[in-house]
């Protein structure tokens, strides 16, 4: 099963990009927090999934018991991260379900399945097991950056074992104690896509490179977005039109591994709560969908200004209210100061030297190695496309980002396909959002472009 005979490590150096150094990254200390009062599945995490509820408000569910399934694919089941009573479903416009909130009963009963013997498993058997027991949503696909379509066969599976985003978590540190279960998860993925599970690791991850030497690893070196799985796929084995590639996040591999080993759904999540306003940033061990309050009360937050909480990293994460819930796929809760302040003559070069820039129009680059206190100010107003070359300098793929964005705006499907829309996902454009002098919302444009393409072609 393992590719001992084909063992090889490739080194890929990413040159373009930008590592953003923000104050308040988490110290290497994990605190396990007890079961919280309420948990929720955030439906926005499951892009393009139309949910059909299998339970009503006030029904009781066990951990691992189905909450809803996808209307377009009834096999695709989503399960509860905790046992308890369904308290509420929060609905938005046109009665679209936003959250399903479950109140924990503190017992943490779970659905018991038989452990899976990987040696005797077939791809189809494993697939239906993962689907019916609610682990499939952890497997996402490119193109479109959505939950993988179980009816398609992937060309390869990719796991990026490091996070290069600002305030990114250290997966080596998170997975250190679970490395054996992580390997079981990888072996399960091998069954789904034999001989083509690829791991991207960072140059300095000696523990991973030693432990995972029996797997297909590729060593990446360079600034963000070298840790984005999309960038890694592009450099290892790019996606062509008509092909599908699956991606899984490292801690979700552990969840799959646990399920295979014990037959139990344990959606554990090690979260870094970090950012400039967090005075004691650290790692907390909890479960996906946990209420944010249970995390934020563990840390000291600066007072005196309004804060923004983000599920995920500061480039590609989603804003969440402090009363909200941890995202399904996120290992970060980033906290930023809301930058809703005016800056007198802040646009004059060399006046405002605190805010960093990819341009050298202030002295901020002299202190680039120092962690900075970013806030959420746009630092300007939205304008038409003018400057060129800035997108390319932070986009390490052989794709023309500006031209692709323009075709997405126009909605020319043929051109989008030709320019490589299948190879990208919104998160790859996070740095483009960041560095744009015209304050272009590239991630939104690419997401809309992908959705349009999906609607027209599927």
């Amino acid at each position, binding site marked *: 099963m393992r590719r001992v005979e084909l063992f090889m490590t490739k080194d890929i150096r990413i040159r373009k990009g930008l590592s953003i150094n923000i104050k308040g990254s988490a110290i290497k200390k994990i605190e396990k927090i007890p079961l919280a009062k309420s948990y929720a599945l955030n439906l926005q995490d499951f892009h393009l999934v139309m949910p059909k509820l299998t339970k009503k408000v006030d029904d009781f569910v066990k951990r691992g018991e189905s909450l809803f399934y996808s209307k377009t694919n009834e096999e695709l089941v989503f399960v509860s991260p905790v046992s308890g009573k369904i308290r509420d479903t929060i609905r938005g416009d046109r009665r679209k379900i936003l959250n399903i909130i479950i109140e924990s009963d503190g017992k943490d009963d779970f659905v018991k399945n038989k452990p899976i013997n990987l040696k005797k498993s077939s791809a189809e058997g494993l697939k239906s097991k993962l689907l019916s027991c609610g682990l499939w949503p952890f497997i996402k696909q490119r193109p479109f950056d959505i939950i993988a379509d179980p009816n398609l066969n992937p060309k390869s599976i990719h796991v990026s074992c490091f996070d290069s985003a600002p305030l990114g978590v250290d997966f080596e540190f998170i997975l250190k104690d679970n490395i054996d279960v992580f390997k079981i998860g990888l072996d399960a993925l091998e069954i789904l896509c034999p001989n083509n599970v690829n791991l991207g690791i960072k140059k300095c991850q000696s523990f991973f490179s030693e432990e995972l030497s029996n797997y297909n690893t590729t060593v990446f070196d360079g600034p963000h977005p070298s840790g984005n799985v999309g960038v890694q796929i592009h450099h290892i084995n790019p996606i062509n039109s008509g092909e599908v590639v699956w991606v899984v996040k490292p801690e979700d591999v552990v969840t799959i591994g646990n399920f295979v080993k014990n037959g139990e759904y344990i959606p554990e999540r090690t979260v870094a709560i970090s950012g400039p306003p967090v005075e004691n940033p650290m790692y907390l061990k909890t479960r996906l969908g946990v209420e944010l309050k249970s995390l934020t009360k563990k840390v000291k937050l600066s007072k005196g200004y309004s804060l923004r909480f983000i599920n995920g990293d500061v*480039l590609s994460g989603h804003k969440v209210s402090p009363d909200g819930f941890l995202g399904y796929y996120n290992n970060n809760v*980033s906290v930023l100061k809301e930058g809703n302040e005016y800056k007198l003559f802040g646009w004059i070069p060399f006046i405002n030297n605190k805010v960093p820039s990819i341009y050298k129009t202030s002295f901020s680059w002299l202190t680039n190695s120092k962690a900075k206190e970013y806030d959420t100010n746009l*630092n300007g107003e939205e304008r038409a496309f003018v400057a060129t*070359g800035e997108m390319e300098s932070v986009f390490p793929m052989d794709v023309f980002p500006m031209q692709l964005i323009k075709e997405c705006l126009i909605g020319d499907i043929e051109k989008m396909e030709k320019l490589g829309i299948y190879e990208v996902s919104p998160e790859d454009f996070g740095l483009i959002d960041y560095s*744009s002098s015209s304050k272009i919302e590239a991630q939104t444009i690419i997401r809309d472009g992908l959705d349009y393409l999906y609607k027209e072609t599927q």
Partner: protein
Amino acid sequence: MKIRKTLDNLKKPFEKGQKLEKLYPAFDAFETFLFVPNHTSKTGAHIRDAIDLKRVMITVIIALLPALFYGIYNTGYQYLIQTSEAFTTLDAIIHGSYKIIPMIAVSYIVGLSLEFLFAILRGHQVNEGYLVTGLLIPMIMPVDIPLWMVGASVAFAVVIGKEAFGGTGMNILNPALTARAFAFFAYPTYMSGNQVWVSEASNVDGVSGETILGMLAAGNSPEQFGIMEMFIGSIPGSIAETSTLMVLIGAFILIYTGVGSWRIMLGGVIGAAITGYLFNLWGANALMSFNWMSHLIVGGFAFGIVFMATDPVSAAQTMKGKWIYGILVGVLCILIRVFNPAYPEGVMLAILLMNVFAPTIDHYVLESNIKKREQRVKNQLKTA
């Protein structure tokens, strides 16, 4: 802050649903001039770079200032040496300012009025691009051009050159060069010949204000000018184009800050140098045998390649495209100089022509990327 409070009070009638709602873009332009707004990121990345278009544009203006100041001095200097009376540097600066500041004022007043008008009509923010264009236009005009012609050229550039294409970011030609080309073809007697390059040259008898390229085109040798003078810029020419030294300072600012494309600048110099050198070998006329290094420092070449060819909107937008575009601007500039005696200076037409071809260059660069992607699919099929 006191100003902030006053502004917030003033802002009220301009807000949505209020009386002066339509004039909001105009108010916004003044407000954002004073303050970077309190807007926070709504979607996409939550943190943003300090750069915005205001800062980009103001950096270009800072880069233009050395050339502008030298141009002001040189205007006075060129005028005063022909009168052959004793004068000081201050005299030169005073005369130059007297000539040039009104031109800048006219350019900004006419251009910004139109920009505000279009912003209000179209309901978008006033774009900062005109701050650069408005300064560039007087800098590339002959000193004696009447002010109304400056105004007319500006109006043409803004309305036909830019807004007709959809506004900032959509124009095909560089707006400042559009203004110059308009003046060049509409008022040729004020824009070319021997008499227009030195302030009031036509009023002083027996003094020639020919440019070096003009002399060469007429088959004369510009013996009175040494290499140093050409480099420093104490020669006749359009207002701010003469000093290669000052342009180099500007180029340094643009490249150092990352605002200007060094690829275009270097490409242009390479293109012009090679073409100039090849013509040196041929040497059939005075312009052909004019030393290739001198070609780089006389006329508007240096100014054009640093400040005009690098306009990101009208230049090629891909990295490879920028190289090709820059090199071709250089090649064409020398070609026009050498082969067309009616236009002894070729850089304006070279850049405008390449502006037109920039999308074509980008198209072929993109095509090669697309081909690569298609090839990958074919290879995949073969091995499968």
